[in-house]
């Protein structure tokens, strides 16, 4: 079902689009810059863990929506562009194409994070020391992939309708809050926990914080525990999105809604 060559071609295509179309530069490079700068202005006097938390929450994790959004938009783009049918008529599954694009988007997310650290380090002269830099990077890569996969789940709906963007906008913020990316999970009411736990990003945020702060382990499962659950929930969402693609493709083939924009 997933074809590696098509995944690669889609990744390359997305990269080419990225470089030729300057509009992507705004959410990918400039926005993280501004985000971090504002955060640092607000928090630079605090220092220590709180400052690091602000960089992590406001900067790195603040860009998560970007990854989800660009991934969910990947089929929306083809629908708008009129290329959805041209892809559909090939023997490659749509999910391969979307997966390739999502991988590129994850990579851009990584660049965002790098931009944030560079701004902190060089523009503000803040010494960003992570407890476990290697662990941080591994957790970040996995988290970004999981966010892309979440984007795929939303994006599948673009196969049947352009109204998918409304769905995405409705769900983006809850994902933000529930994952504990920006705010700590501890401040959320107890009943929201089950929702938090099924979102892969929750475990990604946990692993990232464990790798950043000494002595942090809010969920009591440790770095590897968080990473394992992150991988597990990501695989579940991937399977869900693949099923969703197949199902919605069939639906679109009955209703004839592949082309209308």
């Amino acid at each position, binding site marked *: 079902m997933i074809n590696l060559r098509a995944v690669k071609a889609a990744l390359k*295509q997305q990269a080419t689009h990225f470089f030729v179309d300057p509009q992507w530069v705004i959410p990918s490079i400039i926005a993280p810059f501004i985000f971090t700068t504002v955060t640092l202005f607000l928090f630079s006097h605090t220092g220590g863990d709180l400052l690091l938390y602000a960089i992590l929450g406001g900067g790195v994790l603040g860009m998560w929506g970007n990854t989800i959004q660009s991934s969910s938009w990947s089929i929306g783009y083809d629908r708008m*562009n009129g*290329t959805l049918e041209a892809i559909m*008529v*090939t023997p490659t599954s749509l999910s391969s194409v979307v997966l390739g694009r999502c991988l590129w988007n994850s990579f851009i997310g990584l660049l965002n994070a790098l931009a944030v650290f560079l701004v902190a380090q060089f523009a503000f002269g803040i010494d960003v020391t992570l407890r476990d830099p290697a662990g941080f990077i591994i957790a970040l890569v996995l988290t970004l992939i999981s966010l892309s996969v979440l984007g795929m789940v939303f994006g599948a709906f673009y196969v049947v309708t352009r109204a998918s963007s409304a769905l995405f906008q409705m769900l983006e913020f809850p994902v933000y809050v529930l994952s504990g990316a920006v705010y700590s999970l501890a401040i959320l009411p107890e009943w929201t926990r089950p929702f938090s736990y099924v979102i892969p990003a929750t475990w990604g945020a946990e692993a990232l914080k464990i790798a950043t702060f000494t002595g942090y382990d809010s969920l009591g499962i440790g770095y590897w525990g968080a990473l394992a659950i992150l991988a597990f929930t990501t695989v579940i969402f991937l399977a869900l999105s693949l099923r969703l693609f197949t199902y919605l493709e069939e639906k679109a083939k009955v209703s004839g809604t*592949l082309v209308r924009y």
Partner: protein
Amino acid sequence: MNENEIVISVKDLVKVYPAATHLLGDGGKEKLAVDRISFDIHRGEIFGMLGPNGAGKTTTIKMLSTLLIPTSGTATVLGMDPSKDSMKLRSRINLVSGGERGLYFRLTGRQNLDFFSDMYQVPREKKKKRVQDLLDLVGLTDSADIRVENYSRGMKQRLHLARGLVNEPEVLFLDEPTLGLDPEIARETRALIKKLSREGMTIMLTTHYMFEADELCDRLAIISNGVIKGIGSPYSMKDAVRNDTIIEVEAGEITQSQKEQMKALPGVSAVSLESLEGRMMARMVVMDAATLIPTVASLLEGQRIISIKVDQPTLEDAYLKMVSDK
């Protein structure tokens, strides 16, 4: 190659688009787009579908090219069912739709073809050469590395065609391949289609133009309101008007209601209205011109009749007769 081999077989095919469902408001009605059509297409043939807007041409092509699931009836393409064996069938067919959309505008022509070659798993060692050959074939070699957004309409259409050939399809579906092209480019496109056919490709196309169908197609089906009105060689379509005559009336003004009145006359099977410079012309397909002329003249009383002529029916008239509601 067996010329008599049936490559596409369609029997009692029906497509009903379900009523659209919206979150708010009632969704509208379901739509019968294709109504029990049947035909066969042989290997190497160019088969055309000709019909007015909304006749069901695109719907038919989409059902055969795996993009739409029929409501009922059967379709077989290369021995496979397009709605069940879609993945296997897709590597052996391709579809090109006319119009501006359907390419990645920010990519170059070559990048577009590269991408689609990967989607079709064109063997890596062949890909580069095939893409170059296709660019040569459609005359885009010089602009291959320019972004598609800078292409003219005709260049885009040629790139579309090249895209449709990346997997060397056995069956090519072309939905209005000359849509929006200037006469020169349209003629080149038709020449290319004929060339592909000579090389053994089976081609099914749709068009609005009788002359195009006449020039290109070995056989064609005339479709209107989802129903096939006639099927056969372009020449045989003339049978529909074998016993008819044409009355051509020119007058200062002919109103739409007068056109309807003409159409309602006994023995009249189709009327088309054309406005020329400062006057109008009605072309009527009729059974007996001599007895009708006085009636037509009196119907147009007061409209400054310029001329009334009797003519031989053409293929175009046959088409108009077949698709007219009468």
